[in-house]
């Protein structure tokens, strides 16, 4: 179980971290979250969305279904791994439900679009955590014993973050050497979003 979930976390984390590094180093455009929010809101409010089966609004149904399936699967993987690691899956499931309730309450209280969250910084942090936890559980599941046991995570998380930041600096330098104008534009664009 741990090797499977750890491996999945590691694959997801490396994908997130790669995209965050590409954005931070100017190789990939940063999302204009405000524009994405407005266009999605406009599409969601468009009248005439057809009714299919039991779904009154097909657009809203598919949007909610995709969100719940993708994010729910990730939560399930993380809760299962935490639970399996401590031999207490019910406690991990209860903690996940409590976390979902807290996030829902905060979301209702704040009522602000996600565009106000610094997207790339958030993705960078999530990528670092996923990679560090994925490495830890994947290797443990495959039979490895970490020095310092669970405390190894306290070394792994900052080490992965520092390595990723070093890669951002390295690939930003490569962008600047390859195309100074584009690099400046990318960095300016990033600065306006951060």
């Amino acid at each position, binding site marked *: 179980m741990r*090797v499977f979930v*750890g*491996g*999945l976390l*590691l*694959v*997801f984390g*490396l*994908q997130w*971290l*790669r995209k965050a*590094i*590409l954005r931070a*180093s100017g*190789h*990939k455009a940063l999302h204009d979250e405000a524009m994405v929010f407005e266009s999605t809101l406009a599409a969601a409010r468009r009248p005439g969305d057809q009714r299919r089966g039991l779904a009154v609004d097909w657009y809203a149904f598919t949007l909610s279904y995709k969100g719940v399936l*993708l994010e729910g*699967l990730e939560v399930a993987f993380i809760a299962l791994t935490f639970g399996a690691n401590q031999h207490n899956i019910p406690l991990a499931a209860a903690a996940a439900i409590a976390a979902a309730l807290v996030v829902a309450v905060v979301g209702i209280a704040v009522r602000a679009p996600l565009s106000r969250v610094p997207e790339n910084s958030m993705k960078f942090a999530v990528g670092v955590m996923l*990679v560090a936890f994925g*490495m830890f559980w*994947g*290797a443990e*599941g*495959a*039979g*490895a*014993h*970490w*020095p310092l046991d669970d405390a*190894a995570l306290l070394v792994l998380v900052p080490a*992965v973050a520092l*390595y*990723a930041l070093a*890669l951002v600096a*390295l*690939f930003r330098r*490569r962008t600047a050497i*390859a195309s100074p104008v584009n690099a400046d534009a990318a960095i300016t664009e990033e600065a306006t979003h951060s």
Partner: protein
Amino acid sequence: MIRRIRAFGAFWYDFIIGDDWVVALGVMLALAITFAVSRSTDTPVWWIIVAAVAILLPLSVFRATGRRR
């Protein structure tokens, strides 16, 4: 029916493998090597996954930047 099965497979491929299959293959290989070495010796094997990530992450970024040029 075939179209739906294909779409279902494409969804899972995109969800798990993403846009760089080398990462998924590398992680799988690193975990398999960790498992094999941990079974056959008493030497520490935790470094294998660390080394794999240290190689796979810059390689994947490098491949992505190469594709964009």
